[in-house]
């Protein structure tokens, strides 16, 4: 197994990181990293940005193959950050459907706070300090899967995720999964049997630190068939950084909240 280690050889910064299950593991090296740099993550994936001619050669290698890009830029740094899980497959879905691994039965006029696992993708961002930044690549350790929410005529194609429910924050590999603190409020007059939640990509507010990727959302159940989900823009823990939004509601002029009209 690869050891967690950092070293600098011939000006090349080499960083290796391995997730160790449990309450404490070495801080994830999100960055920023000076160039040239080589990052080896979880035994299976490596990223490097090495000098090539007048620019840099970006290279990502994992089990699915190799991605290479020429980056023509002067001085800069790279950093990693979690982003919304909608880049793979690209341009198809902009909604996330979380299917609960167990149904939640909620009495009328009651609310509950739960922690659910959510898939994330990782962006490699090239930054020229105080000038600008650009996303070089987005990758994921997860196999994406799609599902239809609603009817064939008017439903939504969503990124599907079988989400496990926890009553406190579980320990997860921050490169793979994040935590969603979901407050479900049953505003209806009947018991609610909640089995899934659908969220809009345009509203995901992801915060992260060296050991946790987290977001917060609410789910308001209006009646037997409809519910509303909205992300909350705020960190789950103090000191967490906000990830850049790749699907900004403001940029796309789309509503951030999601009205689930086909059941929950």
């Amino acid at each position: 197994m690869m050891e967690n280690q950092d070293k600098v050889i011939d000006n090349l910064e080499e960083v290796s990181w391995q997730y160790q299950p449990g309450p404490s593991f070495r801080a994830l090296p999100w960055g920023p990293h000076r160039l040239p740099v080589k990052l080896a993550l979880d035994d299976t994936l490596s990223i490097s940005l090495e000098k090539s001619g007048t620019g840099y050669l970006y290279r990502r290698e994992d089990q699915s193959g190799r991605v290479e890009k020429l980056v023509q830029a002067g001085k800069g740094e790279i950093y990693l950050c979690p982003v919304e899980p909608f880049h793979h497959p690209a341009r198809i879905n902009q909604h996330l459907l979380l299917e609960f691994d167990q149904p939640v039965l909620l009495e009328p006029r009651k609310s509950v706070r739960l922690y659910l696992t959510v898939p994330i993708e990782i962006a490699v961002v090239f930054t020229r300090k105080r000038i600008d930044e650009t996303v070089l690549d987005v990758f994921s350790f997860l196999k994406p899967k799609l599902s239809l929410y609603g009817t064939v005529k008017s439903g939504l194609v969503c990124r599907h995720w079988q989400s496990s429910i926890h009553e406190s924050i579980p320990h997860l590999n921050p490169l793979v999964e994040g935590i969603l603190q979901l407050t479900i409020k049953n505003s209806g007059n009947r018991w609610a049997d909640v089995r899934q939640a659908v969220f809009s990509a345009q509203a995901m507010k992801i915060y992260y630190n060296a050991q946790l990727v987290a977001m917060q959302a609410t789910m308001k159940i209006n009646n037997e068939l409809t519910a509303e989900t909205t992300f909350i823009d705020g960190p789950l823990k103090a000191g967490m950084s906000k990830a850049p939004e790749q699907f900004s509601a403001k940029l796309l002029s789309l509503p951030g909240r999601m009205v689930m009209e086909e059941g929950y």
Partner: protein
Amino acid sequence: MFEWSEQTVYGTVTWYTLLIAALIFLGSLLFSKLVSIQLRRSLKDKLSKEHLGMLIKVVSYGIMIIAILSIMPMVGLEPSGLMVAGGIVALAIGFASQSIIGNLISGLFLMGERPVKIGDLVEISGNLGTVEDIQIISTAIRTLDGLYIRIPNETVFTSSITNFSANPVRRFELAIGISYADDADKAIAIIKDIAANHPLILINPPPQVFVDALGDSSVDLIARFWSPTSEWYNVKMELLWKIKVAIESEGIKIPFPQRVHWSGSGEKADLPESIA
């Protein structure tokens, strides 16, 4: 003070009536502009850019035509006289432009009904292609071979239209035959596993894989998968070969069509009971 306004300009037309006519014209121009702005604001999310532009033109031209007809008597022109004179011309033009008017009205109905929109993959009167433009008179599609076809809107309106892009997802079907000696359950499990690992095959609606028929040469399996409408054809092209390779690698045979011939010269004991 305003005696000049009573002075005639020509015939019975005075400066006053000319002024009123000009004010009505300018007022109508302003009114049509305001209506256009209001329509643009209120319908920009409900109608496509092309349809909205067309609707705004029709409404603003309509307002101006009504305004012009109403001020014509003020400036000494009788619309009734024009109508009589124009009637014959209109009749001639009407006959000549019958198909144009038909296409135009069909175009307006198509804009209301909206069975297709720009970018949709459609089949209209036997032409399969992507809708490139919808005009008031005709609809343009680009076939999958890259050919440009202009279809009159009357044809579009009266033909049956298949819109392959109308729904967000669609189902496709693959037929796989395996030999009678092989385990169909095993083959079904392999195909379902391929579907489960493919990112563009939907979890819900779930894939269906089952024995459809006991064919002449093979046990015929049918696999049905749902995929996003924009991706289904690529997935279909990719999947059949993947399934073939996967089930053959597990020792399951895909048989050739075969027929057993029994010759009359053989021993009776060699023949099947039903023939013997």
